[in-house]
C-alpha cells in the first residue's frame, strides 16, 4: 500500500482525516500512534514529520503533515485532488470552494483552540498537575468557546443545512471533529443550541453513524481513559502545558 496515514484518534485533525479517508473508500495503511506515549518524539517519526505532530501522510515519496495546532486541512485537500472524491467535499465551483476555505481559515484561531482548551482544562491539566484550573480562567475559556459557537451558528450555518449549502463539505467535517472535542471533556455544547444539534445530527447521518461513532470512540471514553491514565504518561507535556495554558 503506498499511502500511509499516521493518526491518533484522540486528536481532532486526525479524526477528520480518518473519517474522510474511510468515507471515500481511500485505501491506506492506518498507522496508529499515541501522542500521549510520546511516539512523535521518536527518531522514526521524525523522518516522516519534522513538525513531530499528527496527522501525517506518506504517499510514496511524498510526505505531508501539519502542526497539530493548525489542522488536517492540507492533507484532506491533497486527498480530494489525488483520489477524485465527490465534488461536494471541496467544490469545483470557485465561490463555493472559497466558502469552504473561508471556514477552514477562520476556525484555526477560534473553534479549534477554544474547543481543544476544554479537554486540557477539564481533564488533562488536572490529571497532570493534580490541581483544578482557577475558576476565572475556566470561565473565560468557556466564554471564548461560546462566542465562537455563536459566530459559527450566526455566520457559517445561518439557515443552511450545511456550512456551504445543501451538501456536506470539508468545512463541516473539520467543524464537527473540533466541536466534539469539548464533549469528550464532559461539556455538552449542544445543550440549548438546537440549531447546532440539528446540524450535528445531519453531519453524523451524512458521514454514517457507524463511522462517526467509531472515529469518536476515544472521545466518548475520554473521561474514563483520563481517570485511569498513569500521570507519568503526561509528564512530558507539562512544560508545554505551562507555556501554552498557564503562563
Amino acid at each position, binding site marked *: 500500500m503506498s499511502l500511509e496515514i499516521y493518526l491518533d484518534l484522540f486528536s481532532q485533525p486526525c479524526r477528520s482525516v480518518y473519517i474522510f479517508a474511510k468515507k471515500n473508500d481511500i485505501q491506506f495503511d492506518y498507522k496508529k500512534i499515541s501522542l500521549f506515549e510520546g511516539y512523535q518524539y521518536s527518531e522514526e517519526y521524525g523522518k516522516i514529520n519534522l513538525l513531530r505532530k499528527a496527522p501525517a501522510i506518506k504517499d510514496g515519496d511524498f510526505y505531508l503533515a501539519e502542526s497539530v495546532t493548525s489542522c488536517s486541512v492540507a492533507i484532506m*485537500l491533497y486527498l480530494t485532488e489525488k483520489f477524485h472524491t465527490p465534488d461536494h467535499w471541496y467544490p469545483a465551483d470557485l465561490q463555493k470552494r472559497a466558502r469552504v476555505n473561508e471556514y477552514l481559515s477562520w476556525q484555526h484561531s477560534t473553534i479549534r483552540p477554544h474547543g481543544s482548551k476544554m479537554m486540557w482544562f477539564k481533564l488533562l491539566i488536572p490529571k497532570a498537575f493534580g490541581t483544578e484550573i482557577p475558576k476565572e480562567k475556566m470561565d473565560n475559556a468557556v466564554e471564548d468557546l461560546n462566542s465562537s459557537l455563536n459566530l459559527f451558528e450566526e455566520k457559517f450555518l445561518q439557515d443552511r443545512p450545511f456550512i456551504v449549502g445543501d451538501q456536506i463539505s470539508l468545512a463541516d467535517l473539520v467543524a464537527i471533529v473540533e466541536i466534539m472535542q469539548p464533549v469528550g471533556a464532559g461539556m455538552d455544547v449542544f445543550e440549548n443550541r438546537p440549531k447546532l444539534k440539528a446540524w450535528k445530527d445531519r453531519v453524523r447521518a451524512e458521514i454514517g453513524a457507524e463511522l462517526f461513532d467509531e472515529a469518536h470512540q476515544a472521545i466518548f471514553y475520554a473521561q474514563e481513559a483520563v481517570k485511569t491514565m498513569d500521570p507519568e504518561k503526561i509528564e512530558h507535556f507539562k512544560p508545554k502545558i505551562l507555556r501554552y495554558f498557564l503562563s
Partner: protein
Amino acid sequence: MAGRQAVKAYLDLLSQPCRAVLIFLKHNKIPHTLELVALRKGQHKTPEFSKLNPMQKVPVLDDNGFVLTESDAILKYLATTYNVPDHWYPKLPEKRARVDEYTAWHHVNTRMHAATVFLQEVIFPNMGQPTNPAKFKKALTDLDGTLDMLENMFLKRKPFLCGDDISLADLLAVCELMQNSFDCLFQPMCSGRDVLKDRPKLLSWRSRVQSALSDSFDEAHSVVYQIRQKFTAKL
C-alpha cells in the same frame, strides 16, 4: 472574464494580511477598488461594516456581491478565479498541498506570534492601551521558535517557502515579517525592530521575495504614502 466588474477590497493597510491582498491584486493587475477601513478609528465596528462582515475584521473581498473574508481564502479565490501565473497556487496536487500546508500553519504560528509582538510593542503603546510585558516576552520567544521552523522545515534547501518559486505562502509570511517599513510611514508607529536581523537565511529569503514583488511593493507603498500625505495635509 470580459466585462467582469472590478472587485472591491476592504482593507486597513496597517494590517499585514490586508497588505498581502493589496500586493497580490496589484502584482497580478486584478481590477479592483479599495475601500479603506481604519481599524484604529473603529471603522470596522460600524453598523454598515458589520452588515458586510459580522466578524468585524479585515480584509474583506466583495466580488460583485460575493463577499469573502479570511486573507488566505481571499488569496486562493483570486489566484484561482483570475489568470495568474501557476506558481502562486500551483495546480499540481503535491505542490498545492505544500502551499496549503503553509497557509494552515501560518495562522497560529507566523501570524499569531508576529502580530502579538507588533501589538504589544507598537500599537498598544501608541493607542494608550495597557501592554502586557509577560505576554510580549512570551510572544518574542514563540516568534523565535516559528522563525526556526521557517528556516529548518519550510525553507531548508529551497529558495522559497514552498519550492523554487514564490507562492501565496511567501506573500503571507513576508507581510508579517517586514521591517515595519509600512508602519514607519505612520510615524511614530514604528518600532525599528527587525526580527530577521540575525538570520541570514531568512534575510536572503525576504530579499528574494521583495525582488519578486518589487513593483507591486512600491505601488502598495505609494498608496500608503498618499494616505499619509492626506493625513498630514489635514493637520
